[in-house]
């Protein structure tokens, strides 16, 4: 049980983390809405994937997903170190998580470029529309979470990283990592 907050206020978790948790619930429903829409359109289609469309790179993305999961794993290590109060040994896993996360986003971007070249565009089919919508929205979240993590890294180096900020940043990144396998299974498989 955490101690009473400032002025004896009952504060069960840092404000930043609390606010981020509420935000993440809203974002979860955003993805739930898109997944629902995807299932409805997919079920109504006479054949899936739509004919004449390039195949999504299932294997390459599977590897890329592992990179993302590894990033999440390193962030767990950083989290543990942070809560042990061991700020020195959290720098390395935090940087690794950041690097792997950035790799994931960049790799997804290069995949987009390749698919656009092969003729899968936003308007070419409902598969294309949903692919760019869902993966794009996830990519925006990933980029935002990476920016927060980068700020956290800077603050760690300067020595004023607070539990609230770090909690918020890592919560968003865990959400990005956690929702990706679901999206992968829904959109790619």
């Amino acid at each position: 049980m955490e101690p009473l907050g400032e002025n004896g206020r009952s504060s069960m978790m840092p404000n930043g983390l609390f606010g981020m948790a509420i935000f993440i619930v809203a974002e979860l429903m955003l993805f739930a809405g898109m997944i629902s829409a995807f299932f409805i359109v997919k079920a109504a289609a006479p054949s899936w994937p739509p004919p004449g469309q390039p195949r999504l790179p299932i294997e390459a993305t599977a590897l890329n997903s592992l990179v993302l999961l590894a990033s999440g794993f390193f962030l767990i290590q950083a989290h543990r170190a942070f809560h042990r109060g061991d700020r020195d040994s959290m720098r390395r896993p935090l940087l690794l998580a950041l690097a792997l996360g950035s790799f994931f986003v960049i790799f997804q971007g290069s995949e987009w470029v390749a698919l656009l070249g092969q003729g899968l565009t936003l308007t070419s089919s409902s598969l294309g529309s949903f692919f760019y919508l869902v993966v794009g929205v996830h990519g925006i979240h990933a980029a935002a979470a990476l920016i927060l993590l980068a700020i956290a890294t800077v603050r760690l180096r300067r020595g004023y990283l607070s539990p609230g900020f770090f909690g918020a940043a890592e919560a968003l990144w865990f959400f990005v990592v956690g929702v990706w396998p679901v999206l992968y299974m829904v959109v790619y498989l």
Partner: protein
Amino acid sequence: MLAIVVVAGALLADAASACTVCLGAQTEASRKAFVGTTAFLTFLPLMVVGGIIALFVRRTLAQEALDESRRAGDLDAGVESQG
């Protein structure tokens, strides 16, 4: 109970063709998708928010009990120091 029986009876009855999506195999899939996503969207928030609120309320009530006992402890300590 009666309500459940009534609704269940009507659900088990055959769907008519006013059901726009109940004709043919492909529209059958579409119908299932609508029913499935309806259930999904309906129950997901209840589970997520319900879980968070249950956790929050439990922790807060425990915290309040702790505060209460701490306050009682302070009071006792105060009485002792005065005594």
